[in-house]
């Protein structure tokens, strides 16, 4: 999957508008995400940061503007093409309800590989390799109801990264966790993403989570504000 990587920004939004009914969520959002960077998207509740993530990931289609992945426009693609993109090139970690309760932890992790057409034995074998990396040894056969919040989120993280996506989209990944567990999940997320060169788009309102990123942008009133490193005085 990584052989299709090009040069230049991996993801771009230009003049993106999207309204829900008569309520505008994005009003000309511009964003450039460099390959391999970990970018925090911050902003107050209702600012449009999650909507922007959904547009960039091909989950929502903007009313106007362009979304480019690897230099190619994806906002005009049909649902099946966007679905394939999400399955084959992107990974996702959200705050709640991500694991399929009927499946074991290792089946949950293997799910993106199985959906991508990998044979079951190979998919499960690759899924198992993530349990040691994320401190989940011995939990492979547990179902989501038998995992703590931190364990479940690490399983979700393994599932988001197992197919070696080019971009990991993550929305408040530690929002449901206590401080220490959240920090452990973030440290693992950053280490794993850096190891495999995955670009990470991290939506969060939490400055301590955003501090794990390489840089941050702030979404306000549906637009993206980006700041260069400021000169510090006294």
């Amino acid at each position: 999957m990584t052989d299709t990587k090009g040069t230049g920004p991996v993801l771009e939004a230009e003049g993106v508008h999207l309204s829900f009914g008569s309520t505008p969520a994005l009003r000309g959002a511009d964003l450039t995400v460099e390959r391999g960077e970990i970018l925090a998207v911050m902003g107050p509740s209702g600012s449009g940061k999650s909507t922007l993530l959904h547009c960039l990931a091909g989950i929502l289609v903007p009313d106007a503007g362009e979304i480019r992945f690897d230099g190619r426009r994806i906002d005009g693609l049909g649902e099946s093409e966007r679905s394939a993109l999400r399955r084959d090139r992107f990974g996702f970690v959200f705050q709640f309800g991500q694991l399929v309760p009927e499946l074991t932890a290792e089946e949950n992790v293997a799910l993106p590989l199985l959906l991508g057409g990998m044979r079951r034995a190979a998919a499960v074998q690759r899924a198992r390799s993530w349990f040691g990396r994320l401190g989940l040894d011995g939990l492979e056969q547990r179902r989501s109801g038998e995992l703590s919040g931190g364990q479940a989120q690490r399983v979700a993280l393994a599932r988001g990264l197992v197919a070696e996506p080019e971009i990991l989209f993550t929305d408040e990944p530690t929002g449901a966790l206590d401080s220490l567990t959240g920090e452990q999940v973030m440290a693992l997320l950053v280490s794993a993403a850096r190891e495999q060169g995955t670009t990470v788009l991290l939506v969060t309102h939490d400055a301590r989570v955003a501090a794990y990123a390489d840089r941050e942008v702030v979404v306000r009133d549906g637009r993206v504000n980006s700041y260069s490193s400021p000169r510090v005085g006294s």
Partner: protein
Amino acid sequence: MSVPLTLLGLLEREPSHGYDLKRDYDTLFGRGKPLPFGQVYATLGRLARDGKVVVGEAEPGDGPDRKRYVITDAGATEFETWLGEPVAAEPHLQTVLFTKVVLALMLGRDAERYLDTQRAAHLARMRELTEVKRTGSLVDALLADHGLFHLESDLRWIDLTAARLDALRTEVTTR
């Protein structure tokens, strides 16, 4: 907090007498710790010596001080530079942040941009401390956490202030 720069900020608004400067300073920034008259005049004297303000002729009237102080171009430039710079992202600097925001609002400057710049400076420092946590010992992490929690507290204040800027502007400019 920098008294000379704060007085320059008050003079940027309009030329003032020492007494008026003290009154405005105490009202806006004193918070129970009024500025002694001696410090006001000593500071104004140093600012005049350094070419940051000029002192007008003594005006007739009651009281010891009837001189009007006027900010110079050099003083205005120094104030503008200070106002536009983020404060070094260290804990316990809320007073300086507070002063800058009030002065920016009073003078019709872009307080939101200042808060944005400060937010970026705080996050840059938080990134450094987070990296210390990721790569250092547990003792390093403990120290880094102390700084991170204080910086996070400042950031919450910055976000809340940003959300209240319109109301604050009204309150500060109608005093």
